[in-house]
């Protein structure tokens, strides 16, 4: 009796595992077929009364929504005179590359811009447009990953006016860099002021709901890198350790960066 029960149980377990495996294969197959618009792969698995037409409508609806999202969210690229082939590229991208699991709108746009970089021969002007937009997505991801730090920095930034007035007198203030920032290099004059010659390193960072981009002088870039390696530290410590600048230059830069919301004090 015991043996019989055991055999039954094994069979049931095997049956359940088998059924689970089959279900996994079915869903994976259907999801991929629908993501790539392969209607023919779905049709054999349809319930009676449903046909290819229904699957095609589903797929067309998805592709159309994806097209609308990319065109809408990347309108500044779509309308840029340097991107006359935008529409054709979007169509090719949608046909070739499915959406990654859990991808949101920004992630999908980033994936499209990455695809353009990988598949097209781009001019320096086109590269700069794509680079700036992808940097915005990177800053957003950083803010998301370091949410507590990002929120704390934004709160501290609201005190910048008050603290910059007393920097000279209070070198024990801690200085913090905006945690949601990234560097990139511009290769053309498209976004540069007259007199700036590419290539130019630029800094992208979060301010409010926006991402700003600044061109900094060589000395400021060096000091920001230095601070990034030192922080958290007080102004006094930075001045004492710095191999790049003296007290006067550091305080002057700290004031300028505070005005840009690139640093805050605590």
């Amino acid at each position, binding site marked *: 009796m015991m043996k019989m029960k055991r055999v039954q149980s094994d069979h049931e377990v095997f049956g359940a595992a088998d059924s689970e495996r089959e279900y996994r294969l079915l869903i994976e197959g259907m*999801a*991929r077929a629908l993501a790539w618009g392969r209607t023919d792969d779905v049709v054999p*698995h*349809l*319930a009676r009364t449903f046909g290819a037409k*229904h699957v095609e409508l*589903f797929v067309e*609806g998805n592709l159309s929504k994806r097209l609308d999202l990319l065109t809408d969210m990347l309108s500044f690229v779509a309308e840029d005179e340097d991107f006359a082939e935008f529409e054709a590229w979007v169509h090719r991208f949608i046909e070739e590359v499915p959406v990654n699991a859990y991808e*949101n709108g920004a992630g999908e746009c980033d994936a499209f811009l990455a695809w353009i970089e990988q598949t097209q021969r781009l001019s320096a002007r086109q590269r700069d447009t794509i680079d700036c937009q992808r940097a915005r997505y990177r800053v957003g991801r950083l803010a998301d990953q370091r949410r507590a730090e990002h929120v704390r920095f934004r709160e501290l930034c609201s005190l910048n006016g008050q603290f910059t007035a007393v920097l000279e007198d209070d070198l024990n203030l801690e200085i913090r860099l905006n945690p949601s920032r990234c560097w990139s290099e511009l290769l053309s004059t498209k976004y540069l002021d007259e007199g700036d010659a590419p290539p130019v390193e630029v800094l992208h960072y979060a301010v409010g709901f*926006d991402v700003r981009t600044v061109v900094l002088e060589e000395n400021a870039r060096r000091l920001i890198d230095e601070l990034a390696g030192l922080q958290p530290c007080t102004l006094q410590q930075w001045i004492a350790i710095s191999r790049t600048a003296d007290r006067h230059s550091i305080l002057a830069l700290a004031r300028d960066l505070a005005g840009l919301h690139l640093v805050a004090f605590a």
Partner: protein
Amino acid sequence: MLPAIGYAVRKENRTILSDPALNAVEITFEHADVPLRMARFLGDDEFDYVSVHALKLSVGSPDRPGLRYLDALKRISLENQATAVSDHLGFTRDKEQGVEIGHFAPVPLSAAALDATSRNVEFVQNYLAPMPFYLETIAYLFQLEGTMSEAEFLTQLLKRTGCGWLLDVTNVYANARNFGFDAYAFIDQVLPAADRVQMHLAGGYFDEEEGLYFDTHSQPVPEDVWSLYHFALERGRGKIDAVFIERDAEFPDDSGWRSELHRMRRIAEEVTGKG
């Protein structure tokens, strides 16, 4: 019990959220989860009932939903003091690190799908507790081969998991109209299995060429859906927690927004006898 009444929040209807007829809102998780945000999505506004509506749990997938997505969903829900969380009965991806379909595909109405979906729903419920979780009936354009009816599947799923039912009245109307079943009978069969219910109302259009009703959330709620809503309120008396109208395109003017809101409340008051 009068259900909480409100709208799915869009930037186009923010101005009418202070209407006294409204005491509930539904926020779409993907709209609220903005990386550069400082304040919560709802700002300083307070409501009796807030529901966070997710799009990518994919409870019909063989894998359970990813913790990163669930963590973010829970964080946004807590940030906005949500009463409840919901998502759709379907699958949107092949596996965890795989590809997204783009829209919810209906799960096959089979025992294996019921097992996988129940497992995922239970996992989500445990993760989000004490916030109750509701599962929405989707509008579909096709069904995969299965062994039971949609009502049977849903009934078993609700009984097995104890999760709430987000009865999208327009989705049921669309499915019934498109594929020839009785929407009233469907609701009548499933409602007893649900301990708690939310409802969605919306309006789409009938495409003469395709012979199908599309739930596009772009039109006023049709009369047939108002009737079904009335019926569902009567049948679900005592367990309808909240009702939301969804609108995503061709937005009405101020009076259009308010008129549907007031009608939704008036019907609920009539049925429950609470004015």
